[in-house]
Each structure stands twice: as C-alpha cells, then as structure tokens.
C-alpha cells in the first residue's frame, strides 16, 4: 500500500527525492517554518523512506503557504513544495477527508476578505 502511494506521490509531484543533498536550505527559507511539525527537507526525506502516514496525518500539510520559496531556492532543483502538495492531495482525496467544509466558511469571513482567499483554501484543502 505504502509503496504504491509513494509511487503515486512521486509521479504526481514530479519530484526526484534522490537529488536532495539534505542541506536544509528549503527549510531555512520557509516563511512558515515555525508553524510546521515537519519541514520541507523532512518531507523530502520522509517520502524517500516511505514514511507517508505520519506526513498525511500532520497539520504541516495544511501549513505550507505555496509561496514557492523552497522551489526557487533549493540548490538541487528538488522543488519540495510540489511534494508537499502531492502528499496533501493524497490526504484530502481520501473519502470524507476534506480539511475544510463550506459550513466553516461564514465564520471566517469579514467585509474585506478577498474571494481569492476563499477559492485558494478550497483548492488547497478540499478535493
């Protein structure tokens, strides 16, 4: 099961985890580093080891800002955010596993919040 899932995550992200030299630059540049239990370089390592359940159960998959800083600045072109995206998709694609539901939304709104924020969380947090 895990191996199939790992293959799917690698395939859909297009990331080659073996290129990583564990320098930690992706994590050092991550603006949401403090909010994450597992950091970008750990995603790369843990996917390589097949440690997927821990990642899929962690809130870290919802804390990535999709800012592409780690994608831009990795000296090896590993593109960790693409891997985080693929792990998150694997998690929210499970039946009943949307991270946000429409009923949650009204409580989050204020008069100035742009639609862009709402469509973005739906795209990131639901199937």
């Amino acid at each position: 099961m895990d191996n199939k899932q790992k293959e799917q995550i690698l395939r859909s992200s297009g990331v080659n985890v073996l290129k990583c030299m564990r320098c930690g630059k992706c994590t050092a540049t991550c603006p949401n580093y403090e909010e994450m239990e597992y950091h970008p370089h750990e995603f790369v390592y843990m996917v390589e080891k097949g440690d997927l359940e821990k990642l899929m159960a962690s809130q870290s998959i919802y804390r990535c800002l999709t800012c592409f800083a780690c994608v831009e600045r990795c000296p090896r072109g590993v593109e960790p955010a693409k891997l985080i995206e693929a792990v998150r998709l694997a998690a929210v694609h499970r039946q009943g596993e949307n991270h946000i539901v429409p009923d949650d939304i009204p409580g989050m709104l204020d008069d100035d919040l742009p639609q862009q924020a709402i469509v973005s969380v739906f795209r990131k947090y639901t199937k």
Partner: protein
Amino acid sequence: MRTFTYYPGCTLRTKAKDLDRYARACAKALDISLEEPEEWQCCGGVYTTAHDEIATKLSAVRTLNSAKEKNTPLVTVCSACHNVIKQTNYDISHDAETASKVNNYMQLETPYLGETVVYHYLEMLRDVVGFDELAKKVTDPLTGKKIAAYYGCLLLRPSKALAMDDPENPHIIEDLIRAIGAEPVIYAQRNECCGGYMTMEDRSSAVKRSTAVVTSAAEMGADMIITACPLCLYNLKKNSQTELPVYYFTEVLAEALGVKEDS
C-alpha cells in the same frame, strides 16, 4: 492602439474593484485597449502543481485559448491569476502529458499548446509601453514619496514559469516607481510571503508574516507600500501590527497619469 485580451479574475469584480478600475483607466491613458473575454471563470487562486490534476487547470486554459482565438496577447493584473495562468501555460508547453490530457478533455477544434503570450500588467508597462515612454505621460508626479514595492511570492516564483524578473533581486516595480517620479525603497521582505490564505486557517501565522513585511518596509523609511495582489493588500492592511498605508500599484499609477478622479 494596441489590443490585449484582459482577464480580470473574480476578486477584481468584488473586493478589489480599485485594482481593476484604475488598471482600465491607465490603459486608456496609455492607448491600450483591454478586451475582456465574453465568458471567463475564476482561475482558482492557487496553481495545483500535481501533474495528474487536470480539472483545476481547465479554466486557465480556456482563458489562454480565448486570447489565442482572438490572436492577442493576454494580460492579467492580479498576482494570483497571473501566477496560475503562467504556470498553466508553462506546463502545457513543457509537459506533454498535461497538454495531452487537457486537450483530450477540451476537444477544441485546434489543440491549445501554450501559444498565447501572457503578460502581467507590469510587464505590459515595461515591455510594451516602456517605462521611459510612461514617464513622459506622467502629469502629476509623486515627487518626494518613498514607496516600497511589495512583490510577495506570486509575481516572481517559480521563476522558470513566471519569467518576469530576477526572483531574488527584482526591479520592475521599482522602475515603475521611478517612472512616476517617486523614490523606491528597497527592503529585505519585499519578495517574501505575506501569509496568503493562511489568514483563514490560522490568522496568527498571517499576522506574523504580514507584520514582518510591513515592519521591514517601515524600517527602511517607506511612506507607503504598493502591491498587485488583493490578498497581500488584505494581509498587509488587516493582519499587520505595523501601520503603513498600502495601495494597489494601479491606483498610484492612475494618480500620476492624472486619471484617478475620472476612473
């Protein structure tokens, strides 16, 4: 008169009307015709990088294809739309599997293969109008104003798809600031994230990010920040604990071109 297909996106119709209104007024003053497609859909706000996600890319492809059919370049002004549309176009041009799945679904008369040239409004100012020409059209220069350009993430990254400016040392907005007679302020956080949509999931993390950005600009002596992104504007205004006025770049441009009042 040069003609562009103009994609405003959902937020410019609602909470970011100023970004749109001033963009249209300035284009008119610069002799550019912006033609909105008859039909368009929301771009989705963030690009899904996964190769097997096709449905979430289709609305961007429809927009790209409508510009192709009109034989015009496509211009967007919201940073998020720009990011999604350029990444989609890049993947269609560089990833045969994405291109074939998208075209298999859409069944267009002629397949869409990434032909449309996409500009951000800022790139249109730089590459089509030219900042020197723009400077000549300025009637009300913002002399003495110290303006901090805020790029955030979506305008610049990933640079291989966005190809707009140097991702680590950008200058396109600073060049615009000079063209309208003001003084650009360089500060460390200008291309770091404002917290983005995290304001909905965990406001405190957006507060940390936005405060870091605004504080960094204020420390370098800025009078104001300008941005191209509705969500950046929201975060920097609402979630930052440092006060500094934040405007859309189109608003200060409209002021400099003397078209703000009648837009």
